[in-house]
């Protein structure tokens, strides 16, 4: 068949990927025409060659990693739209904050996880807290420099806060009442003091410094590239590396294809062992998995759970498992309209979701049930008393009856970018039908989905979510902001919500967020939140990476990205 | 010939023993220009001429002389840029504007073009193609039509068995004669022929020419005969019109033009014929 209309023209050439030949053989010419047309949509670019610096063997100081995409800008959180998984990868490797969470051992041998109960010096050498818990004093490292050898001092810290708050697209929402650069004072070259609005905010403040928000930049390098119109060199920094203080700096990039990261010789924790990391874009998840199997790359990101389960059988590969996975599947029942403005209906649906089947069938066992969204490893906090997530048709039916219905039709919206969630919808649809829910599944493109989520325009939406700052306060309230706030996708607001905020406020008033007393209030808040069923935490998903056994020091982090600076290759 | 039939109103029955009414086709300052600006090309310079039911007008010229354009203008297949074609004093543009007027004109004036592979619709039988004008223009159908068609075929020495064939299944010469048949079944009063013998085998050219001439004379049919071949044109025509670059360079009784050409172009045409191999000799078919 001459496909004279093909929008993509020729199928993309993927010369040295043997699995494709096998696929071609299996499907026959026409099947391939169909598949090529489809996968051409998916793979605008894909690994054209995996030669060059080695993946699994050869020089161990240079590695190739298969990623699903690259961030369009290096500015991360400073760009309003910088909050993408790809941007987080750069946060972990190009940027460093004043403090960070140390790594501790966890379930998978050779792998570590972040300890969210502890903060240690990073760009700062150390810090201490005043008696009243309102003043944090950071002591800078002696002789510490940026990539080019310029000294990093208190001035860089002051400058970094000024630069964040000066960026129009930077959202300061997660800092709460923190006054930004006004609260940051240079005591001397080696000392900075930062005032925070309440002692209870201290833990989250450290969390923000360590993850996501608190990166320190090299004032000298950025000043050198500043212009009259762009005094903070935002335009320059979007595409050029070297101004961050992370383990790597960006050496070169080809948009949507490849980015090369080179070790920062002046890194706070010493020059990383892996000298060069090539992030290669392979848009198709199956291809990323097969590159892992063939040994063409040393690590692949964003692998589908079923593929992870298959790859786990290969003894030369590590498919990490952690005790408390952070990324979770979030089913938001939008409460600003019928039918989910009714608590009983929400609770009924909560009981109509086949949690165990989802974990087994969609996630191949690589997910765990979740109780609330505060990290269970948090000191002073337990999940005791928070209702279990159970598929219970009879309970769902009786709750629905209490709400005056024997059946309910509604639309569940999902993004096409997350195939696992599309599958999850189908499973929900099949099982919820037995409880009287007729679920229509609606797929939207990622952009449309984002708009629908922040606008709360749909009845129910399904997406993956995570709190990058794993403190109780941040996890618990970030997605439940009061009022018509776009960061609260469910717009949950009722009597239960008032009770929820009473508990949150009581917890936040306590100076030690890791105390048992605080933990009890957070537990009460979480219990109310789960009972209200405005957001249903279906399950937490295990890390999506697969990597070679030759890697040690892989760390599970709150943004689920790789800290190459901690890698050792054997 | 056949029994008299009731034809379309203005078409006189050719079987009427006495003189059928005379039909006159006239061109007045007829002009045809193609294109505009630099690509402007005058195919027919303003010219006047007249064909009536007793005329056999020969139009001769080389290819590109505008003779074919002229013939198409005369039968209403093309629209003049200026000037008029009139039939019995009525402008054909006016006649053609109504379906009934158009049909009356078509029934009176017919046109046969040189055969190409596309002279007939490849998807229709020859019977269908020949019967259509008979039905549309004269309202003759069924057995009556079949009889008339067979009569014309006999006249043209065509096997009626061919009627069930498709145009691709007969020879070019046979197709040319079928094209003539398609026009003659209409019983036109004026017949315009454009290169109708050029595609024919030399052995049958004479017979066809004779047939056309005889038919036109016996049925009082006016003839317009367009050809690049001077001998055939001279043989069949009583009046000769010589065209060059869209212009009439000579126009007069055939005999006068042949014997005493006034224009150098006419002379060169005659010379070319005399020097070249004789396609056909007028006296050989006379």
């Amino acid at each position, binding site marked *: 068949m001459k496909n004279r209309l093909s929008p993509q023209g020729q199928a993309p050439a993927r010369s040295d990927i043997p699995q494709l030949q096998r*696929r071609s053989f299996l499907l026959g010419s026409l099947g391939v025409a169909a598949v090529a047309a*489809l996968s051409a*949509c998916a793979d605008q670019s894909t690994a054209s060659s995996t030669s060059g610096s080695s993946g699994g063997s050869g020089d161990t100081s240079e590695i190739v990693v298969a990623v699903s995409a690259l961030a369009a800008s290096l500015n991360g959180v400073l760009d309003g739209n910088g909050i993408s998984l790809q941007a987080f990868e750069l946060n972990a490797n190009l940027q460093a904050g004043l403090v960070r969470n140390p790594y501790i051992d966890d379930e998978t041998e050779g792998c570590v996880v972040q300890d969210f109960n502890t903060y240690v010096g990073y760009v700062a050498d150390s810090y201490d807290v005043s008696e009243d818990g309102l003043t944090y004093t950071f002591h800078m490292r002696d002789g510490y420099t940026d990539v080019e050898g310029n000294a990093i001092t208190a001035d860089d810290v002051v400058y970094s806060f000024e630069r964040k708050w000066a960026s129009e697209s930077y959202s300061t929402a997660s800092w709460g009442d923190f006054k930004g650069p006004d609260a940051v004072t240079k005591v001397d070259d080696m000392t900075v003091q930062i005032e925070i609005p309440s002692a209870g905010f201290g833990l989250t403040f450290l969390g923000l410094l360590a993850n996501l928000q608190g990166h320190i930049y090299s004032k000298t390098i950025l000043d050198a590239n500043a212009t009259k119109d762009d005094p903070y060199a935002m335009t320059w920094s979007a595409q050029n590396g070297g101004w961050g203080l992370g383990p790597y700096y960006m050496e070169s990039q080809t948009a949507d294809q490849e980015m090369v990261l080179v070790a920062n010789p002046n890194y706070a924790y010493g020059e990383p062992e892996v000298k060069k990391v090539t992030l290669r874009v392979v848009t198709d998840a*199956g291809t990323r998995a097969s590159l892992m199997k063939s040994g063409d790359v040393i690590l692949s990101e964003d692998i589908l759970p079923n593929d992870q389960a298959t790859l786990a059988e290969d003894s030369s590969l590590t498919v990490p498992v952690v005790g408390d996975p952070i990324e979770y599947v979030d089913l938001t029942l939008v409460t600003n309209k019928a039918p989910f403005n009714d608590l009983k209906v929400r609770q009924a649906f909560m009981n109509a979701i086949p949690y165990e089947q989802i974990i087994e069938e969609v996630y191949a066992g690589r997910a765990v049930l979740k109780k609330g969204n505060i990290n269970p490893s948090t000191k002073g906090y337990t999940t005791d008393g928070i209702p279990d997530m159970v598929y219970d048709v009879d309970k769902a039916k009786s709750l629905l009856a209490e709400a005056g219905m024997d059946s309910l039709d509604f639309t569940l919206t999902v993004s096409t970018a997350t195939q696992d969630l599309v599958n999850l919808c189908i499973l929900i649809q099949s*099982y919820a039908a037995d409880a009287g829910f007729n679920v229509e599944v609606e797929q939207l493109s990622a952009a449309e989905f984002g708009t629908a989520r922040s606008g709360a325009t749909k009845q129910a939406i399904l997406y993956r979510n995570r709190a990058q700052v794993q403190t109780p306060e941040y996890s618990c309230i970030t997605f439940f902001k009061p009022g018509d706030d776009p960061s609260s996708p469910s717009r949950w607001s009722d009597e239960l919500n008032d009770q929820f905020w009473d508990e949150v406020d009581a917890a936040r008033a306590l100076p030690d967020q890791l105390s048992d007393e605080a933990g009890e209030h957070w537990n009460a808040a979480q219990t109310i939140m789960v009972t209200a069923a405005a957001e249903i935490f279906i399950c937490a998903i295990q890390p999506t990476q697969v990597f070679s056994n030759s890697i040690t020091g892989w760390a599970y982090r709150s943004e689920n990205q790789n800290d190459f600076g901690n890698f050792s290759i054997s | 010939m056949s029994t008299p039939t009731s034809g379309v109103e203005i078409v006189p029955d050719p079987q009427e023993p006495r003189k059928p009414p005379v039909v006159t086709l006239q061109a007045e300052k007829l002009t045809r220009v193609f294109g505009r600006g630099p690509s402007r090309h005058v195919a027919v310079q303003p010219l006047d001429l007249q064909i009536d039911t007793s005329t056999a007008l020969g139009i001769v010229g080389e290819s590109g002389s505008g003779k074919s354009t002229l013939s198409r203008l005369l039968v209403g297949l093309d629209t003049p840029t200026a000037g008029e074609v009139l039939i019995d004093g009525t402008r054909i543009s006016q006649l053609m504007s109504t379906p009934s007027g158009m049909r009356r004109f078509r029934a009176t004036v017919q046109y046969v073009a040189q055969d190409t592979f596309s002279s007939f619709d490849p998807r229709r039988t020859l019977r269908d*193609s020949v019967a259509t004008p008979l039905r549309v223009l004269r309202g003759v159908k069924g057995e009556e039509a079949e009889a008339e068609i067979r009569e014309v075929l006999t006249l043209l020495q065509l096997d009626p068995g061919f009627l069930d064939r498709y145009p691709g299944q007969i020879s070019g010469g046979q197709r040319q004669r079928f094209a003539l048949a398609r026009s003659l079944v209409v019983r036109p009063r004026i017949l315009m022929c454009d290169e109708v013998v050029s595609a024919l085998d030399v052995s049958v050219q004479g017979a066809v020419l004779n047939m056309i001439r005889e038919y036109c004379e016996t049925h009082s049919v006016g003839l317009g005969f367009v050809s690049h071949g001077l001998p055939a044109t001279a043989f069949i025509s009583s009046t000769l019109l010589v065209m060059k670059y869209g212009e009439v360079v000579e126009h007069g009784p055939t005999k006068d033009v042949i014997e005493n050409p006034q224009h150098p172009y006419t002379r060169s045409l005659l010379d070319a014929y005399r020097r070249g191999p004789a396609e056909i000799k007028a006296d050989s078919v006379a």
Partner: protein
Amino acid sequence: MRVLTFLKQVPVLSLVGAFALLFFVIFGGMLAPYDPERVVTGALQSPSTEHWFGTDATGMDVFSRVMAGAQIDIALALVVTVVATVAGVVLGIVIGTFESRRGLAGMAGRGITRFLDLTDAVPPLVIGVVIVGLMGATLTSLSIALALIMSPVQARLTRAEVLKVRNDAYVEAGLMAGLRPMQVTFRHVLPNSMRPAIENCSTVFGFSVIVLASLGFLGVGLNPPTPEWGNMISSGVSGVMLGSWWPVLFPALALMLAVIAAAAVAGLLTRLSRGPAAR
């Protein structure tokens, strides 16, 4: 290619193809042993006596979905092919007839021709996304979108043929026979200009299914879990890499067979449209 050429020469196979297409459109769903839109067992089970084509990534029965998908894909592709071809041929005839005329009709004809050239420059998926975006993703809106995507192609093919045909001498002979221009168009131009569009029907058929699937991939296709071959292929294709070939192979085979059957039917139509003399 050679297979398709062969099929075009054997009318019996054309009839078999037509029969098979109709059979699956009418009875496809009845042949499904399980509910094609429900999870019936565990995910990604390989083909067995219970699940002939295995199960997909959610645990739906692939055989049932392939059978039920026939009713959606073949029916939609047939509708699109017929609508796009009829509309395209009519449009092609109209513009082919009028575009060289003087006056308003000519201007309109030339305008439409330019517009059709323009549609060639716009990727069909973009057109589809816009239309489905405006009308929502239903079988009807998708049929309209796909017909709109496909009809310009049929129109261009027909127009090119009209430009050739209208210079054929039999068109003038038709006028000389007293037929009005419209009669000539319907009697002679139309039947002789349809062939390229009819020959292209099998391409339109196959491409409809592929575009349908691509639209699904972009999130503007039919919503899951509607059993649609293209969606089944696109959602299963990642798994093929690591051995789960059955959720992709069977719908791809079904698609291939449907296109071959459509090609066989188109072959028959082409023979008919070529005219009796050529038979």
